[in-house]
Structure formats: structure tokens, C-alpha cells
């Protein structure tokens, strides 16, 4: 039910960037931050607070899940070590939501191009 709602609604920038980053590969938190910076050529910056707030919501909505790793059961240990980093993965519902959002954005871009062409023709 929640997934259906999210499919219809425009995603926030943070949500879109996180889903986009995870579409490429399973990543840990810092990996997502770096991937988002890379995808946006450094124009969009995601802080740890914003990242985990959104990850929590996405996990509740079933769009992102823990990636199966051997150390997943140990992730509640006191400190984060190299092997204990928690990996996140895009679920099928997450992939569908991302695809729906990309389709929506394509529609917006198409309409925007059409309007700009009309405006240009009107000026000529």
C-alpha cells in the first residue's frame, strides 16, 4: 500500500539520489554518500543525518533492505570495522519506484521542451 502511494508521488531529491546510487550496486552508508556526490558531479551533498533518516523511511517502506552479508548478524556490535559495514540493497519495489519516478521526470522534461519550443516559436 505504501509503495503504491510512493510510486504516484514525486520523490524528494534525497530519496531519488539514494535509490539511484543503490541501483548501481549494494553500498554501505558512506558509499552511498560518495556515489550521490559522484552522480551529481558534487552538486548534491548528502549528510549522514539526512542519509540515515531517508534510509530508515525507505526500509520501512520496503524500497531498500539490508544486503545479505556474512557480517550482517554482527552489525549491532559496538564499533564499525571494515568487515562489519552494513550494506544496503535496492528491493524490487525500490527498483519499480525508481523506474516510475524516472518515467515521471521524462514526462516533465518532454513537456518542458515542448513549452520552450512553443515559446521560442512565438518569439520568432
Amino acid at each position, binding site marked *: 500500500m505504501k509503495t503504491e502511494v510512493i510510486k504516484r*508521488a514525486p520523490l524528494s531529491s534525497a530519496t531519488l539520489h539514494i535509490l539511484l546510487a543503490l541501483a548501481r550496486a549494494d553500498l554501505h552508508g558512506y558509499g552511498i554518500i560518495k556515489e550521490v556526490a559522484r552522480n551529481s558531479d558534487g552538486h548534491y551533498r548528502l549528510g*549522514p543525518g539526512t*542519509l540515515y533518516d531517508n534510509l530508515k523511511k525507505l526500509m520501512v517502506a520496503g524500497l531498500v533492505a539490508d544486503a545479505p552479508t556474512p557480517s550482517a548478524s554482527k552489525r549491532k556490535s559496538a564499533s564499525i570495522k571494515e568487515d562489519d*559495514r*552494513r550494506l544496503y540493497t535496492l528491493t524490487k519495489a525500490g527498483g519499480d519506484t525508481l523506474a516510475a519516478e524516472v518515467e515521471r521526470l521524462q514526462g516533465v522534461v518532454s513537456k518542458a521542451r515542448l513549452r520552450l519550443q512553443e515559446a521560442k516559436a512565438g518569439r520568432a
Partner: protein
Amino acid sequence: MKRSISRFAYRLLLGLHPASFQEEFGDEMLWIFEEEYKPGNAGYLLFDGTVSLLRQRCRIQSDPGQLSIASGAIITGPGIGPIRLLQATITISVILFSLMQLVGQSNPFTVSVRWADRMPCYTVTLQAPSHAEVILGTMP
């Protein structure tokens, strides 16, 4: 010295988050703080941590996720009244000012309240000049 103070302030912010959130993400947030920390970056990380604290504490419990994801706003919906929103704004202003004083930076944040001309609604925002504007709340 400044790094240790910033780390202490960040730990303090994490400690104020709800226990379940701390347990699930606290270590990872601290790890990213350590990785991302640079002398000119402390203000942004503390700002982000403070906004995260507000989000976690003020989120509408009845329907987490749906409204925030749909609108892109951090706090939204009919569950937060104007008084609570004003309290949150004052609290975050005081916290940020104190943290900036603590890490020896001038306060780079501005708090603004905007009322729409024709519609009975207003928006409270926090803005850091070099970073994204954060909408604290939009009230119908």
C-alpha cells in the same frame, strides 16, 4: 582540539536521538562523521546532525515516511501545531548557535519564517549559505 570538540558535540547530538535510531544507525553516522570531517566541514555536519535530531523527535508517528517522502519536507502534515513548530525553530536556533560558538565558527545559519500572501500557510526554513535550504515545517 577542534576536532575533538566537534566529535564530542556530534556524539552529544547522536545521544539525543531516539534510542532505536541510535542503536540502528548511531555507529555508522559517527563513522561517516569521522570520514567526512574537515576543519571547514564541521558546521555542516553538526547542522545535518541537528536537523536529523529534529526529524527523529518531531516525526509524525502515525504515518512515518509517506508524507515526508512524498513532499520532500522534513516535518509536515497536520500533526504539528504552530506552537510546536515555533518551539522547534527556537530550540534548533539555540542549539546551532551554541554549537557554532563551541567549535569556534561564526553562525552561518539563518532562520526565516515566510507567510504566503493569499493562502493561509507558512513555512519555517533553516538556511546555510553554502548548503541546501532545509524546510523545517510547512503549515496549512
